[in-house]
């Protein structure tokens, strides 16, 4: 069996590769039986949404190479769309969520289409500018977003005759959304589309020679990122019942990028673990809230240093190798070559 390429790795990514998906899901499904605190469940349900957004960065940036500093904005597009559909048009939650996901995916695709005109580092600026402009739109388009006062009174979600209003139901809503988006992203990343994304990111010229359209691949990656963000936005509506522009700031988008990087940038599971851990630590441990940036920044620094020190090898593999060597056992496994840290 061939291991998929994971061009950039970190401790979280390494841990992730050894956890089996169904077992992890089962544990998470059972967790609320043990954890009774409504506050903890709420923090976790929101961190599932962050994980969805960070996975979108993995797909668009980690795989296709598009610096995506607009995940929070696409999240907002989905959230406002769904809030309007549910409050004003009386659409059901599920239908609204689907429409919201499609709208966010379309906006993501449009943003991706501009990537074709812009090269390299300018793309960071494009997505940052987009996020800032949309922040102003969210704040001032009162008829649709509620302006600075925010969008108030979003109806509770009803799914299959059940009204979601407990912390536990929010937890499961977020977890279900995470599971769905994870499966979709994972399938795409493992298919030839995922390989084509890596090909486009690493060498566009070569990719074209192999019959791959870099433009179509880049747009597809942003459509996928927007799709997940739209679903997360729908869940946010029903968990909080209230949204305002502050949630969809540049800082928030930046954090999603950061979670993805800490998670190993090209690892979906790594992104989930990093998002949940960092969100949880800085929200649950209230005394740490003020140190949020310090903790985030420090984690990124450590992740980068570990990667530099190991030359791209996974820390787990490296530790195992050293352990074997220390015991004097012959190391029969093929040494995994270091992967170059790709400068953007």
């Amino acid at each position: 069996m061939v291991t998929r390429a994971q061009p950039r790795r970190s401790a979280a990514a390494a841990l992730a590769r050894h956890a089996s998906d169904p077992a992890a899901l089962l544990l998470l499904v059972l967790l609320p039986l043990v954890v009774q605190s409504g506050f903890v469940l709420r923090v976790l349900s929101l961190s599932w949404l962050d994980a969805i957004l960070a996975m979108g960065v993995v797909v668009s940036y980690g795989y296709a190479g598009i610096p995506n500093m607009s995940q929070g904005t696409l999240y907002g597009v989905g959230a406002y769309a769904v809030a309007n559909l549910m409050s004003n048009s009386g659409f059901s939650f599920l239908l609204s969520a689907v429409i919201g996901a499609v709208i966010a995916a379309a906006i993501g695709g449009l943003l991706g289409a501009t990537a074709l005109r812009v090269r390299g580092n300018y793309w960071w600026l494009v997505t940052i500018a987009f996020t800032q402009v949309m922040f102003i739109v969210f704040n001032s388009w009162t008829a649709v977003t509620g302006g600075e006062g925010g969008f108030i009174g979003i109806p509770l979600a009803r799914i299959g005759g059940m009204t979601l209003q407990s912390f536990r139901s929010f937890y499961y809503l977020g977890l279900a959304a995470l599971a769905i988006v994870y499966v979709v992203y994972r399938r795409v990343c493992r298919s030839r589309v995922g390989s084509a994304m890596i090909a486009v990111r690493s060498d566009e010229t070569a990719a074209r020679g192999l019959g791959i359209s870099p433009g179509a691949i880049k747009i597809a990656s942003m459509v996928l990122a927007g799709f997940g963000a739209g679903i997360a936005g729908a869940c946010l509506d029903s968990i909080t019942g209230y949204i305002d522009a502050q949630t969809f700031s540049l800082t928030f988008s930046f954090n999603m990028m950061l979670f993805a990087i800490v998670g190993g940038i090209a690892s979906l599971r790594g992104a989930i673990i990093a998002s949940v851990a960092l969100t949880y630590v800085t929200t649950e441990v209230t005394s740490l809230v003020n140190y949020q940036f310090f903790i985030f920044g420090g984690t990124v620094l450590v992740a980068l240093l570990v990667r530099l020190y190991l030359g791209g090898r996974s820390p787990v593999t490296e530790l195992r190798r050293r352990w074997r060597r220390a015991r004097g056992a012959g190391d029969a496994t093929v040494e995994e070559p270091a992967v170059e840290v790709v400068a953007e």
Partner: protein
Amino acid sequence: MSEPDGRLVCTDVKLRFGGIVALDGVHMTVEPREVVGIIGPNGSGKTSLINVLSGYYRPTSGSVVFDGRRIDRHRPQELRRRGIARVFQNLRLYNGLTVLENMELGLVQDMSSALGVVRATCGSIVGRRQTKLRGTARERASALLSENGFGALAAIRVGSLSYGQRKELELLRAIIEPPRLLLLDEPTSGVAHSDADVIKERLLAWQAQFGFAVVIVEHRLGWLFDVAHRVVALSSGTLLAEGSPEEVAADPVVRSAYVGS
């Protein structure tokens, strides 16, 4: 004329970069199954010609016709779909991917257009057919790898292979989905003599097996004359001479152009 005949016809192809004239009215025909060698000093326009034929450069004027259809306004990814494969002068393998993954990328599955990508993406999400398709692709890739001595290396990252192996592998990636026209830009540059001979044998075997036409730019004249049916000599973007390897080798104009190089 309009049925797919696999013939390539360049008519009066000119290519300018500002004041630099890279190609200055090139006329050239490549018949199906024919192996054409291109020689010429550095800067004579060999790579530019390959870039035009593979869709990377648009000629300033003139036309390129393949299969009876104009292709000089088409993009590389579209031309690969139509059966024109190209190998670059410098290595362009994906070093972070494994040997097998690089080979899989060589299997042309339509991702040359937005529609193709949508289809591939939806297929990968929904499912079964996709996995099967990928399964057969992987089988074919594995089979070709073992036939060519890369069987044990399938799971190795390309970055850890030797230079000669990588040159060979890149060639293999270009023909894994057999093209009808293969464009090679200096396939043996930087490769040891023994490896160059291996590449020659493989290339001839594949050409016999799949029956594609080949255009080869190459500095090793002996190597090229063993492989090519016909040789074209370029100088300053124009055709200096054309004929069988023996004729071109004997051509006094070519000889004088090559003195000292």
